[in-house]
């Protein structure tokens, strides 16, 4: 029967993936036309440029992977910027072989704190993580105000962020491994299925005998640990851990998740979408700066693109009773 086949085909193509993929191609085409006209080359299509973009995207991608986990729950983590900063700064301050474990530990601790506030105290995640972000900022001011600890990343951090294996930058490899792990967790592990289920209706999951609070805590811990890892990588990439280094990552990470088709209210979304959303945002920012668009124009286009992508496939149901 041809009819079910057609509908199967239609269902198998994920609209967010399709739209975001087409948009990425559109960005590359527009950028290439620009460079062909004004610079006489197609620099945007060179492997060097594309691999560099993937490398830049890997930091955002890792943050977005963690953000997606909590967004799937129907929560949000606004403490990501200073989780990144605090982890990176503390890792650099400790130095030595324990730098990276310490940084990740800091992220884990922040995540557990967030998770306990959201899952056990039942504070709305938006407001709790917001407060934690402010608190972390104050904490770092306190720690680094009187004296200046080392902000130089260790050799291991530098290698992770700047090294490469057979021509592929290490951050891209790290991002790929994390992506595989997160995708596997969301698809195949009970934890992943609980996360989707809680995003749909937590009360039902609770009544099915799942310890939903533990799932929420674990998700926030994962999110913060991933953010901490991104912060450590970023410190290695920029050869310095500095105040507010995570601030430019909050809104793009949320944007990457929702552009990738994840429902901001939780319960639905594919991990592949988040990867494509990340690449879209990084590429858009990069091509706009290649075109020498001033910051003002970049912000406006960035906002308009998010709205258009959402209007294309993120619309809710009409209220009918």
């Amino acid at each position, binding site marked *: 029967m041809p009819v079910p086949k057609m509908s199967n085909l239609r269902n198998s193509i994920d609209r967010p993936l399709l739209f975001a993929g087409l948009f990425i191609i559109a960005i590359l085409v527009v950028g290439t036309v620009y460079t062909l006209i004004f610079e006489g080359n197609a620099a945007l299509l060179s492997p060097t440029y594309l691999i560099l973009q993937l490398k830049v995207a890997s930091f955002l991608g890792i943050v977005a992977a963690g953000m997606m986990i909590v967004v799937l729950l129907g929560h*949000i983590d*606004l403490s990501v910027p200073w989780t990144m900063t605090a982890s990176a700064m503390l890792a650099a301050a400790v130095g030595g072989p324990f730098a990276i474990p310490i940084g990740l530990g800091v992220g884990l601790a922040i995540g557990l704190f967030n998770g306990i*506030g959201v899952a*056990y*105290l*039942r*504070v*709305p995640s*938006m*407001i*709790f993580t*917001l*407060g*934690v*972000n*402010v*608190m*972390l*900022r*104050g*904490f770092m*001011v*306190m720690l680094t*105000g*009187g004296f200046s600890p080392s902000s130089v990343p260790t050799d291991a951090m530098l290698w992770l962020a700047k090294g490469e294996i057979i021509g592929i930058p290490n951050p891209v490899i790290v991002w790929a491994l994390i992506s595989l792990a997160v995708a596997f967790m969301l698809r195949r592990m009970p934890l992943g299925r609980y996360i989707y289920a809680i995003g749909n*209706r*937590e*009360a039902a999951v*609770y*009544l099915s005998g799942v310890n*939903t609070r533990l799932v929420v805590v674990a998700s926030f811990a994962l999110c913060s640990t991933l953010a901490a890892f991104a912060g450590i990588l970023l410190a290695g990439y920029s050869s310095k851990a500095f105040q507010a280094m995570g*601030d430019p990552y909050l*809104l793009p990470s*949320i*944007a990457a998740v*929702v552009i990738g088709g994840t429902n*901001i*209210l939780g319960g639905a979304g594919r991990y592949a979408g988040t990867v494509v959303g990340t690449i879209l945002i990084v590429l858009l920012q990069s091509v706009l700066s290649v075109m020498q668009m*001033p*910051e*003002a*124009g*970049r*912000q*406006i*286009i*960035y*906002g*308009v693109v*998010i*709205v258009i992508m*959402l*209007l294309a496939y*993120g*619309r*809710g*149901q*009409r*209220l009918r*009773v």
Partner: protein
Amino acid sequence: MSNFRLWISHNTGALIAVVLFLVLYIFYSSLHPRGFTTDLLVQNSNEALALIFVSIAQTLVVILGGIDLSVGSLMTLVNAVASEVVIGTGPEIVLGIVICLAIGLAGGLMNGVIIVYGRLQPIVVTLATGAIFTGLALLVRPTPGGEVDGDLSWVATNALSELPATYGWWDSDPGWFNLVSGIPMPIVILLLVILLVWIPYRNSELGRGGYAIGSNEAAAYMSGVRINRSKLAAYTLSGMFAGLAGLYFAIQTGSGNADPIQAGTYTLNSIAAVVIGGTSLFGGSGGAIGTIFGVMVLRSITFCFRVVDTDSAVGFLANPLLQPMFEGLILVIAVTLGAARAFSVKNRLNMFR
């Protein structure tokens, strides 16, 4: 339950904020070296008014059960515009103010139209429109600067007595005026806005519709509430309040600054103030009056840090390196107490929402 007890139970959050504010402010002004004076009140109310307007803008949207991450950016945009247009002759200044408020209204309407007719979630829409407003603000004012009419700045940031003294609209001598001449102008502006905008809105069909939508949108729809109209009105009015904040901020600082970080700070503080002021983030309750006290609690905490004696037992609070940490800690504690459902829900199943 009697009406009074019902009223108390409906406004517990706001009443706690009022008490908290009074305690903090009395503590602050008694420790202040010059004590409680008109000058102190003028200075403090100046520091609070812009955040109050932004937070009222946030409140209007939170009542619907939404959230607006663009209020700070819209305020910044209007702030940038105001530093260009609120100057010149009298009519020019009035026109400039009208332009500023119109931009605020338009920004809010844009949010509303995208959210209502696009059927999108407010959090992501305002995330995106926030970027657009920031971009526009940077277009208008790439570098900090600009100028706002000096007389207007002076009058709007001082006691009421400066109004007749500067513009000579009436003789400032007669007895009746002495009673009110010490009231800071920001408080007068706030009272006027509350009386002329918030209270009429709150009691209108549109405003009540907003509360109904926040309580239960499907039930509101079935009861004949005009959902789209109420939502559009709330977002548009919210934009106007963000505009008022930007306008006052320009008048207060005498300049404009398209600073995205400052925009973010205002947005985040507005959410905190809304929660401390007793408005539920789930919508359907609370209001602007509670939010005003929420802002004043937030601001009083900052004020208190300024006057702590460095030699006393709590002298470490005065350490400027520790202040951001304690402000954050207090913010977390305040919002946790204000918003934690674990303490208020009896049936565990009701916690999942």
